């Protein structure tokens, strides 16, 4: 049955409104980063202006450590994403193919732990991390970020692996593959979409995360969100143009990654939705 025209129009308008609602703040930040600082908050706002790179130059000159911390963000994000995806894939495979009460209990425990707000876990960890000399290292952030996403990643990948026919495992085993061989040659290639979906979640989370980075880093592993936080707390007045420039730079890698991976994201999220 064809829908009436006005329904289509309403749906289009609703989509437009949602897109505007989501994109407007981002567009405002990006546009403002190219405005002269004195015109950013001028009333009434100006939409036509001569773009300038002065804010980016200011960022480079006055906050050089922002770019160094972006490097740290990248190391930590890639490390956490890789670790979370690998561990989740292996765990998802096991939860999908094996059944026993211990596994069921561990799955429940994994989700139960995830229900705690991060701050509850973080503060008691501080003296421990300090004693282990892991403070201010990339490794501690990689472990923490990955740990917080393994539970969700495991469940997403379990749903993916559930969709892969067991007959493929059995055929591989008949051909001489062991459990590891089945996982590497059959399961991994067929659950790539789910792994990318999990990767996107971890990547976005790790790239923007503040709390763990604030508590467990000082200088060597300091990440970019900490510098952004400092920019907003400047006691001699926030340089809004520079802050918007930094925000735009911070936004670019994650935006590119999500755009590249978005088709897998939908597939990953809907995996197992029609199972049963």
């Amino acid at each position, binding site marked *: 049955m064809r829908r009436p025209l006005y329904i289509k129009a309403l749906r289009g308008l609703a989509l437009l409104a949602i897109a505007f609602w989501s994109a407007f703040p981002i567009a405002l930040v990006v546009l403002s980063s190219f405005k002269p600082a*004195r015109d950013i*908050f001028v009333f*009434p706002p100006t939409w036509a202006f001569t773009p300038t790179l002065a804010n980016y130059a200011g960022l480079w000159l006055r906050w050089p450590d922002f770019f160094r911390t972006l490097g740290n963000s990248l190391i930590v994000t890639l490390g956490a994403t890789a670790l979370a995806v690998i561990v989740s894939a292996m765990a998802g495979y096991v939860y999908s193919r094996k059944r026993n009460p211990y596994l069921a209990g561990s799955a429940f425990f994994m989700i139960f732990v995830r229900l705690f707000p991060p701050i509850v876990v973080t503060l008691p960890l501080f003296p421990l991390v300090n004693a282990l000399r892991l403070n201010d290292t990339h490794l501690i952030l990689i472990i923490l970020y990955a740990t917080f996403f393994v539970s969700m990643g495991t469940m997403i990948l379990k749903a993916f692996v559930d969709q892969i026919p067991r007959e493929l495992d059995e055929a591989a085993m008949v051909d001489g593959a062991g459990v590891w061989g089945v996982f590497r040659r059959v399961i991994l290639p067929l659950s790539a979409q789910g792994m990318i979906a999990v990767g996107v979640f971890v990547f976005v989370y790790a790239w923007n995360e503040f709390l763990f980075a604030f508590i467990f880093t000082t*200088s060597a592993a300091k990440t970019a969100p900490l510098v952004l*936080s400092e920019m907003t*707390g400047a006691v*001699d*007045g926030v340089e809004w143009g520079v802050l918007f420039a930094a925000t735009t730079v911070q936004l670019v890698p994650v935006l590119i990654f999500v755009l590249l991976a978005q088709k897998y994201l939908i597939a990953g999220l809907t995996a197992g939705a029609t199972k049963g």
Partner: protein
Amino acid sequence: MRITRRTLLAGTAAVLAAPAVHAQATRRLNVFGHRVHKTVTAGPGGDIIEAWAKENRVDVEWVTFDTGPLQERLFREASLAEGAVDVGFILNTQATPRIASLFEPLDDFMRQAPIEDRADVFPGMLKGLTVQDKLYGLPFRHASSGMHYNEEFFQERGLSGAPKTIEDLAEFAKRTSWTRNNQPVVGLVLPGVTYPNVIDIARAWDGEFITPDMRVVANEAPMVNAITLLRDLFVAGAFPRNFASISTEDVNVWMQTGRAAMVINSMGRNSIYNDPARSQFPGKFKTTTIPISREFASKFEVAPAKVEFWGMAIPKNTKNKELAWGLMRQMLSKESTLKAALNGNGPVRNSTYDDARIKEKLPFAEEERKVLRVARVPMPAFDNAQRAADLFKEEAEAAILGMKTPRAAMDDLTRRTQRLLQG
């Protein structure tokens, strides 16, 4: 060259020993502070650390945070058995017995290697970092309150010069609340009605919220007068309708974009209001002292406004106490204080204001010195200070919005705060 077993062994030993030799040659000193503390240590006025660091073979490593996170992180590090902080910056409001217990008393250091000309450091700041008769910090940076006004707006509204009394200030605020080029202008703006902001107005009557001997006096005339003044301005449209949600940064933007004519704020903000890169009215902002009330005009030249400051402290758990003290002494020397002031710091020494370069750089230098002679901290530091601040905000907002009379709100505040202090 022929490589023998002996040269190979000697070379290997030299390579292995190199890091140890380097470690001996340069020691590392970790300083936890706000970025502004780092930026004022070097700049057009000169570097205040470089020569000392070279002489003592020290690498000074700055770790910077925003104010709240800095205090939180510093205190957490200081509470460990062994910490990573050698010098930490603390706000005067944090100098409570509980926090002080994490830091080293400095009196012994002061006796063994005193700072240069202690009498030159504003005594109120040293006192503010003294807890139970022990000195826990050396002041480094201050922010004292003043009044900034947009001279162009004053001229447009037929006003000349700054208001002489707090009563005049209220009148000026009403006169400068109008619509200019289709943009509404409000006469006076404050970053909310938290106690450090309102106390600046109450000081026009020499008022307090809590006295240094911990008496709650919010319902005495000065604070009631201050709240009444703000309520009157609110009713007259000379104080923002959304005052309760205005932040410090909003205030700066309002001033820079011409949405407000006057603000009571740290005097150092003059530079950002007049900054051509950020302000629509560069060069038009004048900074002066907060005017005194008519009633107290004979007692004070200017209102004893608030001063807040940062101090440097040594965590008890650091192994580098002597070195940390050395750095702090260096940063508080007369020369360093002057250099840092030229780099944009609020100087904590009286003599700094005598320097011609400071007078040239800070058009309000003399006004600031006048304030510093009489300025006081907004409230004594104590463990429940944040809770008291919350109560103040709640009651002040209720009064200004007209939900209670100023008198009733301040009576309630006094009662509630007394209970807090007793508990």
